[in-house]
């Protein structure tokens, strides 16, 4: 039954609740329309800018048709900067994955300790905020001094930029758990471990996911920059950087598109899905 029909029937029958066929298709449609228009706007501005630069400065500014046709051949295996686009993307994601995984393990563990032990919270948080204030690329000299040029240095930079928001949100989430939740567990005679696993972690999980999300985006952004500076031979960032010398700007643009796409996919698909699932599990989506 449609919304209007069901509504009228409920009013007529004097019932307080009614159900109707959800209008998922309508929402889906308007959602896809928003996405399409948003992307089209960006491409339009890009195109205008490209033509203007070509006209006024004679620059080799890649236009959207040029770039997308090159992207198509790259997806079909054409090499750019000496490797396939898949290899570049894979190496970037591997670095990012390793750095992020370490950030997750350390960040959640440290966040939980700070969140539970109020004695070290104040001091600990100051250190974390200091680290968070250091801009991603400012870690380059520090990474070079510790690891020299190369993979470890890149991973270190990802780790240092992804970790602070994870710590802050995990600790904050645990501190914001309503005291009554803890009291119920203590009163039932639960030990520390089940207080954590059954109460504190589920209660703080949305906040922890928020931290993971910000950390992931931080790491992704700094990865590209770090690849540029630290002399990686392959990777999306390295390819963008190399266009300075090779003047292969089309390849650089292809990499930019891939970076945007991966970032969006992780944010909109993976994290939005994860958050929905947890919200559901936590019973936060109230029924009408």
């Amino acid at each position, binding site marked *: 039954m449609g919304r209007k029909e069901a509504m009228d029937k409920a009013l007529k029958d004097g019932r307080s609740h009614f159900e109707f066929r959800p209008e998922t298709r309508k929402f889906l449609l308007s959602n896809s329309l928003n996405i399409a228009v948003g992307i089209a706007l960006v491409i339009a501005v890009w195109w205008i800018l490209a033509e203007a630069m070509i006209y006024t400065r004679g620059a080799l500014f890649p236009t959207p048709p040029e770039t997308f046709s090159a992207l198509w051949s790259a997806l079909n295996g054409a090499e750019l900067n000496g490797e396939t686009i898949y290899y570049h993307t894979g190496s970037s994601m591997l670095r990012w994955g390793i750095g992020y995984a370490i950030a997750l393990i350390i960040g959640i563990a440290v966040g939980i300790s700070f969140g539970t032990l109020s004695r070290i919270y104040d001091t600990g948080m100051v250190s974390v905020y200091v680290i968070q204030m250091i801009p991603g690329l400012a870690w380059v000299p520090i990474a070079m001094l510790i690891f020299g040029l190369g993979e470890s240095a890149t991973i270190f930079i990802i780790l240092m930029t992804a970790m602070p928001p994870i710590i802050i949100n995990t600790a904050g989430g645990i501190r914001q758990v309503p005291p*009554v939740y803890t009291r119920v567990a203590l*009163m039932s005679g639960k030990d520390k471990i089940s207080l954590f696993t*059954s*109460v504190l972690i589920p209660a703080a999980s949305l906040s922890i996911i928020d931290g993971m999300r910000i950390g992931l985006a931080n790491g992704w952004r700094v990865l590209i920059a770090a690849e540029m500076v630290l002399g990686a031979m392959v990777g999306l960032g390295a390819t963008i950087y190399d266009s300075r010398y090779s003047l292969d700007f089309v390849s650089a643009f292809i990499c930019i598109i891939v970076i945007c796409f991966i970032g969006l996919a992780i944010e909109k698909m993976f994290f939005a899905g994860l958050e929905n699932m947890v919200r559901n599990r936590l*019973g936060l989506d109230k029924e009408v």
Partner: protein
Amino acid sequence: MLASLKNVSKVFANPRTGKGLVALNDVSIQVEKGDFLCLIGPSGCGKSTTLNLLAGFEHPSEGELMFNGKPITGPSPERGVVFQEFSLYPWMNVLQNVAFSVRAGNRSEMEGIARKYLGMVGLLDFAHAMPNELSGGMKQRVAIARTLAMDPDLLLMDEPFGSLDEQTRRKLDNEVLSLWEGQGKTVVFVTHCIEEALMLGTRVVLMSASPGRINKEWKIEMPWPRDPLSPEMIALKKDVVKSLQVCSCANGSAQGVFITINGLEE
């Protein structure tokens, strides 16, 4: 004697602001086995603090707290609390919430015990519902089932129905009463509603605020169900109201009441 406070004082002080609050000053109460003791008084008189001390969530600044002949050092399943605010875990269903507090047994044994107490509060049909699907009254009934499932010797209830409508509150009051009679438990029940206390309690203790003290106590031996309009009850209510007016708390001039206890450290 099941539980007692002997000359207990509780002081909260915030070292940052230099402000302190005496929540309880020299309070002594003895809770006998089988009592249904109602604590009444204006907000800020230390009713909830008294309950938190008995529960073991707070520690006294001075004085002695005993339970079953032993000093109270922390929370324990012997002393179950039904909280004022909704306290069910929203990520567990009703059955899991109740089973969470069962003290021992494997999973199916725990669930069996949980079902027994859910049945007692009339919510067996909602065992698999999530807390956000329940009304406020149902949530508090689940909370009662959860506390009963711990099989406590002493049931501490902190304005459990304060946020519910009048009709639901009366209904749940009667349920608590029959559970208390049927289970042979001892109850300490905090409320700010005089009539609720008179309808339920075998003892009614009036506290006064700033600082929290015991003002007066009444023993009520009338059988249940009690008629709030019977001459005895009306006389009793008048007496309580009179005592309430005599104490300093009623005119609102009390100092310290405006300092919230949250955020203050002992």
